[in-house]
């Protein structure tokens, strides 16, 4: 829904990495691997 979209846009950058929640190795790897698909 637009609200959910807005919420995600506020909380996450376009690569799916949270703006505020600390990230660990596994999540960062996850983000990087998703970037391959984005590419």
């Amino acid at each position, binding site marked *: 829904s637009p609200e959910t979209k807005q919420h995600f846009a506020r909380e996450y950058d376009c690569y799916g990495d949270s703006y505020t929640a600390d990230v660990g190795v596994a999540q*960062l790897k996850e983000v990087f691997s998703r970037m391959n698909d984005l590419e």
Partner: protein
Amino acid sequence: MEKKVRRIYPLSEPGTTYFLQIVWEKDLGTGFDVILTDGQSAWSGRVPKEEISREAADMEMEQKKYVEELRKVFLTEGIPSNIYNFDISKEGTNGDCLHFSYEKKLRDLSFRLGSLKLQRIPSPTEVISKLISCCLDFIVGLHAKNEHLQRENEILLNDLNEVQDQLQKCVEAKEELETELYKKFILVLNEKKAKIRNLQKCLKEAEETAVKATQ
């Protein structure tokens, strides 16, 4: 000059081992000398180039192919004995002349590859001595080649072990690099996230202040 010694077991004397020494210049097709000995007597002869051409023509075989056959007959040790046959027949009073023939067997057929007359060598000592020396020289040469191959083997084995070590190190370095980079990335990234959290908190407070002040 090339030399080769091999054993033959003539059809007419299957129980006797004869030694055949072939001596030729670079190409067998230019003709070759034959020495045959049983370890006590010796006979010698020569197959000239013309003879080789004539034989090839008689058999309507291309000269090159014929010479290849001769190489297999005379120079290849360990060829299964059921492929080539040798035969001798002694002529003259005390076998001074010896008729030496060689043939190839194809299934139950066999066709003569060639033959020649060998003359007995009156004092064979030197010829037999030279034949044994030829074998010993061959052994020395093979030993040298063996040692060379052995050394090459050792060098290759060392190189292989070294490159495998380097590969192992490279794989480990790659894994360490990845771990190291993620560790650093996370530190920097979480710094920025903390900053964002702090800015969001400040912004929230500033907005509340602005709202209150406006009210």
